[in-house]
């Protein structure tokens, strides 16, 4: 639930009601006080208990599995394997009731899907039918395992679209709504608290001193005499991470998004070493998202469930932006510091910003050509 967030959230009433700030007897203003937490838990227990029981009854241990295992880890010890084998033989002989045969057909389908998924090719090189095929398999596999449906798409880049991003340093107050929205939208691992966005808190009058900035603060914002600057993947036009990948598991799409095929990545982390902007993240252990928090509107290249040992990164919320919506961070920002749009559309806000503001980019000398600009009012 929302009380285990480690970043500070200012409740402006824009988001759903969160009880994290203020009103605690201990005098701390930041929702991280223990007494408060315990109280809250006790209150919720009856509801939680019911919920837990319901989930456990329906899907049990599958909840704790990551995307990879949810898809591939068909539990089968020797005994069940033999059981299944015998059962299928019996079916062949027509000596078993139709009820079991349904179950059996399911596990057979699961195995079939797992097999095809393990040996499928690189998404980058797939034709549209193949893309649709793998997306269908992943959705069906999820349904077989959890009994629930997700919606996953494989929309390609639209023509005449090139996504760009602008960040207004004057407006950002460091609330980090963008960070929490991003985590929720993109199904990032909750255990390691993976975050694509980092907000750097810098002191007024010292300029952009990233090394002195604090990108992991836990105090009330905006802090006096400080300003804030967000970084994430800049979706470079000349991305060094793409060049170095030995298997082309990461590439730049036609609309400028730098994406990863999580199933093709071998996990060498060369792209991580090559990125000058700290834009990439690695799944050091199996990522876990509680079933009730999973965002089920997914894109193959975006927020679908990841597995351990693969890279991931900001995709400008490809699952949203290719449907004409703004990325989650843009939508969540209460100050309007974040601007996103089509660089090829002369009437877009982003174009207006680029034409009317003094914009700059980070580490321009490296020749990476980020599609992420900063500006001030």
């Amino acid at each position, binding site marked *: 639930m929302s009380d285990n967030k480690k970043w500070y959230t200012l409740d402006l009433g824009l988001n759903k009601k969160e009880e994290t700030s203020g009103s605690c007897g201990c005098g701390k203003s930041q929702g991280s006080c223990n007494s408060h937490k315990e109280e809250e838990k006790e209150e919720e227990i009856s509801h939680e208990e019911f919920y837990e029981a319901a989930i456990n009854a329906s899907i049990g241990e599958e909840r704790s599995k990551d995307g990879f295992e949810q898809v591939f880890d068909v539990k089968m010890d020797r005994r069940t394997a033999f059981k299944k084998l015998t059962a299928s033989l019996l079916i062949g002989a027509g000596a078993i009731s139709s009820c079991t045969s349904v179950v059996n057909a399911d596990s057979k389908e699961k195995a079939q899907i797992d097999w095809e998924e393990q040996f499928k*090719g*690189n998404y*980058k*090189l797939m034709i549209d039918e193949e893309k649709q095929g793998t997306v269908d398999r992943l959705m069906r596999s999820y349904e077989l395992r959890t009994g629930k449906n997700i919606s996953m798409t494989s929309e390609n880049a639209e023509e005449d679209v090139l996504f760009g991003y602008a960040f207004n340093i004057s407006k950002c107050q460091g609330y980090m709504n963008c960070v929490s929205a991003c985590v929720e939208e993109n199904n990032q691992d909750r255990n*390691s608290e993976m975050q694509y966005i*980092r907000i*750097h808190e810098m002191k007024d009058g010292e300029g952009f*001193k*990233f*090394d*002195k*900035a604090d*990108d992991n603060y836990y105090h009330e914002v905006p802090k006096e005499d400080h300003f804030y600057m967000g*970084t994430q993947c800049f979706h470079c036009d000349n991305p*060094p991470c793409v*060049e*170095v*990948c*030995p*298997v*082309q*598991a990461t590439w730049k799409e036609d609309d400028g998004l730098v994406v990863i095929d999580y*199933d*093709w*990545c*071998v*996990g*060498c*982390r*060369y792209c*991580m*070493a*090559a*990125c*000058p*902007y*700290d834009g*990439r*993240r*690695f*799944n*050091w*252990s*199996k990522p876990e998202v509680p079933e009730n928090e999973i965002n089920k509107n997914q894109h193959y290249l975006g927020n679908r469930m990841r597995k*351990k*040992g*693969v*890279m991931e990164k900001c995709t400008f919320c490809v699952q949203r932006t290719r449907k004409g919506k703004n990325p989650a961070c843009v939508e969540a920002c209460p100050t309007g510091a974040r601007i996103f749009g089509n660089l090829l559309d002369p009437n877009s806000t982003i174009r207006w910003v680029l034409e009317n503001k003094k914009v700059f980019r980070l580490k321009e000398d*490296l*020749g*990476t050509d980020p599609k992420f600009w900063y500006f001030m009012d």
Partner: protein
Amino acid sequence: MGVFKILKSLVIDSLDTITKGSVKYHIWMGVLTLVMLIGMYCYSIQLDQGLSVTGMSDRVSWGLYISNFTFLVGVAAAAVMLVMPTYVLKDIDFKQAVLIGEGLAVAALIMCLAFVVADMGGPSVLWHMIPGIGVFNFPNSMLTWDVIVLNGYLFINISIPFYILFRHYQGKEAKKKIYVPGAVLSVFWAVGIHLVTAFLYQGLQARPFWNNALLGPRFLASAFAAGPALIILVLAVIRSFTAFKIPDKTIKKIAMIVTVAAQINLIMLVSELFKEFYAPTHHSESAYYLFFGLHGKDALLPWIWTAIPLNVLATIILTFGKFRNNLKILYTCCFFLFVAIWIEKGFGLIVPGFIPGPYGKIVEYLPTGIEVGVTIGIWALGAFVFTILAKTAIGIELGELRYEKKKSSTL
């Protein structure tokens, strides 16, 4: 068909040789096996729980594995320093040493590949890297170049000694026409593997500590010091434990190579330090972190300040012929150099590349027990492979293993 018969007999004979030996030999192999098993157990934990069991993080994403990989590429490349004088310059002094050197190269390469696989997040999908079946991002990714040169070098270093030993096994002379072109190729190839491995890091504009033109040449210089130093130590061991004759002259000649390479390496070190510290820029921060610590973070100081004095001391002692020709001093210096360069080209090169991070954040890295376990396991694997190769090669070279001999004895 006759060839296959001989081959079969060779395999049987070598299996026979490597499973027999003194008590010391059996203890040695037993200990190596035990260490390998421990390493495998550690690796199984890593496979199960993911790379989170290592000390690596999003901030320092390469660690002990890649450090060892980098260093061992250098050891593998060093075999060439023996191959060149023997096969190309026809300096027969090295003939005995060169087979050992090539065996060492094979063992080092196997360790390199093992370290790379250990570092992978998804070893089960490594087939994605096989050209034809997977997608091979050649020539854009330097990692694909590295895959090619390392495997090519492994092939060369297996095939040349194999050909020579195979001929000797039959009591025939190896034909120069056949193996000399291969030897010449391997000379260039050895320089290639180390340069390409340096380019792996050198080509990253994101990491100023690596992105410097001296990295490649310095890799070569340090490799040609550390590799032959290891060969000297191995020859010393072989000399005292087997009947294999290695004249002092050979060891002294290799010592000469070590000395010159170490001197060049030291000059380059001075040049590097001068550049980083005379007019320090933002890009010198990694070097500051490595040598002096940054903002109170100084995990690498004990390492680098062990390496530098050892390196300087060994190089100075080796420079004087009087000391160098004293075998005891020579062995000690070689050991110092080996350790110093292992630290410098491993830990001291890879880890500071990530510190400070792209935005100046300093997160330190220390390997975990599991990481160390896997690493030692892989080193044991290398030693195991080398012992097997060396024992067979020595057996053939000493004439204990002969095709006809076996035949006549069975008849």
